[in-house]
């Protein structure tokens, strides 16, 4: 599955996108955030206030409880500030 990052989530992780292959016990968005936090300081910094991070699966907003199975693209970003 492809992961894409935006704004300060992108800056802290230090990349705009990457391919992820999480283990089978990673079921939900929340699980994936937990798994990513173990991948290094940048991820830990990006997700330290996990509740504030927004996620989208295949370009639609989802809650952290949402299952990630079947999604081709997951996005993580801070609350939006457009408009």
């Amino acid at each position, binding site marked *: 599955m492809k992961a*894409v990052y*935006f*704004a*300060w989530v992108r800056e802290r992780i230090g990349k705009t996108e990457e391919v992820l292959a999480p283990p089978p016990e990673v079921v939900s968005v929340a699980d994936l955030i937990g798994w990513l936090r173990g991948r290094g300081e940048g991820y830990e910094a990006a997700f330290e206030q996990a509740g504030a991070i927004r996620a*989208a699966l295949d*370009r*639609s*907003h989802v809650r952290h409880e949402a299952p990630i199975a079947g999604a081709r693209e997951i*996005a993580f*970003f*801070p*609350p*939006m*500030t*457009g*408009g």
Partner: protein
Amino acid sequence: MTHPGVRVQAEGFDVAAESAALTAGRSDIGAVVAFTGLCRDEDGTLAALEIEHYPGMAEEEVGRVAAEAERRWPLAGLRVVHRFGRIRPGEPIVCVVTASRHRQAAFEAASFLMDFMKTRAPFWKKEHRTDGTSRDWVEAKASDDAATERWAG
């Protein structure tokens, strides 16, 4: 899910042309509301905004909000244009134009579109300061969430 009235672009836009496109050749429209959001200089401290967006999702999400506005109000047409990239104080960032038979639908739909644009459309603003020292991401405002909440139900 892309909506024919929605565009996401780096270039500027002409809100009068967007309005004219909605009303051209029609005489069943009684009200047009055109909202323009502009970049403020924050009392001279802001040199520019840099607007990042999620290509693809930005168009789709704004399109979903536009479709929801059309479901809620009897609109004769709508346009939404949101820019990304570097924008200087005084320049336009976003416009929303709604057309309807009656003014209340046009006003409410335009206000709804802007509230949802603020809280659901995947755009993020970074501030470039005139003093050159800091480049901060704009924080989401609780007042924008509250504004969105009032349309619930």
